[in-house]
């Protein structure tokens, strides 16, 4: 039966050749490490978000009078509603963690360097889109926490003279966070961001495939030494076939992701639901402690401690541009960070600063 189907497909679309070329003959470098799986884990994580997100849509009502109730209904009444909501919430946080880890390891291995500058930029944009997903999804349950965190975050653009108020108004659909904001964020979360994400992801994968996997995490290889005058795909004729060898590693890491997710859902179900996340939004009472999700804590705390709001926003925009176009700022040929004490020091300092700001913002 299977052979007949396969044959049928082969006659029409040449599936055997395709599998041979793309899967069996596709080779990955020998010195590849476990961190190379993080891209695939991210895609798997996103897939879970899509599926659980669609399931949540069946019961969720994006209206200020019903949003909170409908989410409570999903959690308490709908059979297994809690599971899909938990998977969505836990997944969103884990996913951003994995995207961070993916970028961090690519950075440490110097794989953003020529010829992969574009891959890095698109990847950084994907991180940005992931955070935008998280941020827009945060408001949807219409809790005290989500309402006030969104109030604060959407007020940030007002620091910019002239355009700021307009930007904030467009974001919120009015002077303050209201039902109009909920509609906007909902539309953004479920129908504007997904196509943008898919386009960027397609481009990211295309670039990865077209340029070839970087097999040189450490040290300078022939790839870096050759003069850059023409396109040259990086192949690894002496590498391992992707399938089954590396595919298994990918699968293993996806299972690690799932295991962590279900472990947390079972043993730490309230990890991302502090007290104010279980109270319905009250536009006339600001709760005592409001804070964004952990991945926005560091920028949030930074804005808090810089006395001039405008300056704070400018610094953050500058940092984002630096991050986005990092491959063009770092023109040094040496990829191995162990041989670059200055970069290493800078990295450690930035990382430490991030962690400090994050914990500071939490308290």
């Amino acid at each position, binding site marked *: 039966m299977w052979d007949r189907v396969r044959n049928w497909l082969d006659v029409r679309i040449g599936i055997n050749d395709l599998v041979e070329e793309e899967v069996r003959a596709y080779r990955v470098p020998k010195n590849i490490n476990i961190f190379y799986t993080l891209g695939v884990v991210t895609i798997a994580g996103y897939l879970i978000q899509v599926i659980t997100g669609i399931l949540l849509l069946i019961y969720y009502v994006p209206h200020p009078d019903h949003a909170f109730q409908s989410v409570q209904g999903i959690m308490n009444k709908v059979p297994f509603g809690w599971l899909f909501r938990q998977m969505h919430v836990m997944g969103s946080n884990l996913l951003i963690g994995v995207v961070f880890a993916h970028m961090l390891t690519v950075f440490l291995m110097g794989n953003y360097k020529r010829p992969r500058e574009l891959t890095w930029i698109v990847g950084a944009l994907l991180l940005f889109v992931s955070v935008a997903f998280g941020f827009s999804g945060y408001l949807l349950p219409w809790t005290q926490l989500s309402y006030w965190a969104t109030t604060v975050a959407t007020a940030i653009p007002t620091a910019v003279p002239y355009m700021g108020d307009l930007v904030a108004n467009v974001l919120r*659909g009015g002077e303050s966070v209201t039902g109009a904001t909920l509609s906007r964020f909902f539309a953004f979360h479920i129908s504007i961001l997904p196509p943008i994400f898919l386009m960027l992801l397609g481009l990211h994968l295309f670039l990865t495939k077209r340029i070839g996997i970087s097999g040189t995490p450490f040290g300078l290889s022939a790839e870096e030494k050759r003069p850059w005058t023409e396109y040259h795909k990086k192949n690894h004729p002496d590498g391992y076939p992707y399938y089954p060898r590396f595919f298994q590693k990918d699968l293993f890491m996806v299972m690690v992701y799932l295991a962590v997710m279900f472990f947390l859902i079972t043993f730490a179900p309230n990890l991302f639901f502090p007290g104010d996340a279980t109270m319905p939004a009250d536009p006339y009472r600001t709760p005592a402690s409001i804070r964004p999700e952990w991945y926005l804590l560091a920028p949030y705390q930074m804005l808090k401690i810089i006395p001039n709001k405008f300056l704070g926003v400018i610094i953050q925009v500058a940092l984002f541009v630096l991050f986005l176009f990092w491959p063009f700022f770092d023109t040094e040929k040496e990829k191995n960070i162990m041989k670059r004490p200055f970069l290493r020091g800078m990295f450690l300092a930035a990382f430490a600063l991030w962690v400090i700001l994050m914990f500071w913002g939490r308290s």
Partner: protein
Amino acid sequence: MKRRSFLQLLLSALGITTLASLLYPLVRYLVPPGTAEKARTLVIAKRDIPLGYAKEIVFNDVPAVVVNRPGKGLIALSRVCTHLGCLVHYDKENRQLLCPCHAGTFDLDGHVISGPPPKPLPVLPLRVDGENIVIG
């Protein structure tokens, strides 16, 4: 002008016209429409706010507070913190307005005492009419 460049020119003109005719409505569509004319005044009874106390109100959709300041009389202030939009509340002990978000403090005239808020709280028009307080 050659036939070909004329056609090219025409094509770009058409393209720009179409693009502009779509972009303009799009931008207008995304900018929220102005809200309708609001209720002009709000009346509360004077005896509701004894000396040293405050009452939270909502005036034209803006959360506000009316404070009966000892020695200085009544004042109506917006509760929307000028930093990032959290709502300040009246601290009776210290005769201050406190913002819970980043610990901004304001005095009872609305001026910033400490913390990150860049501007004083907006003062709403208020007058006393017999036994009533009229805001707006």
